[in-house]
């Protein structure tokens, strides 16, 4: 059983290596998100804020659903890739970095849009923690991207990027799910 697992892991590693070789090096993590969020908050019409407060959990729910849907798609993408790789019929149309980053970027946009509408309800402390840690994650992702440029065939780095993005989703999810009387 363990041998089978190892074979599967080797195959997955091999497939990631191949995809990593096709990296689109132009994709970079977004820089300094918070100024844009703050600008968006300032530009938000007052009426919208009031409406957002009334239905403040709806965007969160939508973002969470979006994330789940995107997460499923991402996972399906990897699964079908591995299966096709086994049969030797895979044609790589997208780079690994695209596969990893795109779903997270879409999900992140969804979350951040929701959090912008919710920002005025958020305690300054939570807002500061969110801001600081999003920056830490962005810096980390940038560091991994840079490392991948030097060594595109490294599955540890693609794993690290996946885990870093997952941490970002966990962070956004955690802040979003604190509930109306907590953030």
């Amino acid at each position, binding site marked *: 059983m363990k041998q089978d697992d190892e074979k599967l892991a080797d195959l997955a590693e091999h497939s990631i290596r191949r995809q990593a070789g096709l990296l689109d090096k132009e994709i970079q993590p977004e820089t300094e998100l918070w100024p844009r969020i703050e600008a968006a908050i300032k530009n938000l019409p007052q009426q919208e804020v009031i409406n957002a407060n009334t239905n403040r959990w709806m965007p969160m729910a939508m973002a969470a659903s979006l994330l789940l849907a995107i997460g499923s798609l991402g996972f399906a993408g990897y699964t079908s890739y591995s299966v096709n790789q086994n049969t030797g019929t895979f044609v790589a149309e997208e780079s690994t970095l695209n596969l990893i980053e795109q779903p997270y970027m879409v999900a992140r946009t969804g979350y951040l849009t929701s959090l912008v509408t919710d920002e005025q309800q958020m305690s300054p402390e939570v807002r500061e923690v969110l801001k600081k840690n999003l920056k830490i*994650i962005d810096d980390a992702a940038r560091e991994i991207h840079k490392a991948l440029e030097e060594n595109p065939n490294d599955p540890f780095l693609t794993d690290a990027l996946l885990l870093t993005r997952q941490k970002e989703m966990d962070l956004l999810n955690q802040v979003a799910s604190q509930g109306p009387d907590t953030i």
Partner: protein
Amino acid sequence: MKLVNFQKNLVLVALCYLPGTLLAGEFVEKSLSAQPNGIVEIHNVRGDIKVLGWDKQEVEIRGELDDLAEELIFEKQGKVTLIRVKMPNKNVNHGDGSKLVINIPNGNRLDFSGVSTDLIIKNIDGGIDIRTVSGDVDGKNIHKQLFVTTVSGDIEFKDSSGRAKLGTVSGDIEGNLNSQGISANSVSGDVELELTEFDELSASTVSGDLKIEGKLKDDGEASLNNVSGDITLKLASKVNARANIKSGPGGSITNGLSSDKVKEIFPNQQKLQMTLGDGSGRIKIYTVSGSIRLSGKNH
């Protein structure tokens, strides 16, 4: 006439102080019988709460409620004993939070949610499930399960056991645990765990340090990773595991666990693969730019 005026002024002065008196947190002392294997569910937005296990089959609350508390809900709902310090739906940035001591029966599980409540928990053998935002969680002698999530609060456990799932964003995690399965995750906080013996350990951060000490069981698995923090793993006793350790550009590996040599890989990376003992378990560690230090008794 002067006396009447004086009395009027006295009444006015008293009225002026009355709202202040009403704002002060109300002192409560209440108890309810509870089931032996029930759940005690506590919701308190802010303050300091101590939850202590005891051998009586009742839940008792003593202390001062939040200055802004509207109501204390304390009732039984089947096997759940509910305690909710109800707050107004408005800004709660003034006044003091609750200061309560709550005793719960042995065997009961504690479910807690709060925002900036610091929590001290002792002698709970039915497990805990805690969610806070900025409050610290300090536990001692907690058993069965330890599930804790905070955003910026620190988590610390001593002399505790059971399945543990600990998560923070910027808070630190520190523990002295006897736990078979442990998951500890943070973004920028540090994780420091002293474990007796474990089957399964998963710990990760983005920029925080990981420092783990304990005995990996045969067939056990340990997975540690971060991006830029340092990772230290100190394994007690003889280890039986295959280890796959990797550091990215700028990272480093120091092997004090065996005589196996760390290999340099271009560009500027390091790798260590080794089989310790019969190789039945698995150790997987990686960092992108941090350092990895292994130590133990395998040589």
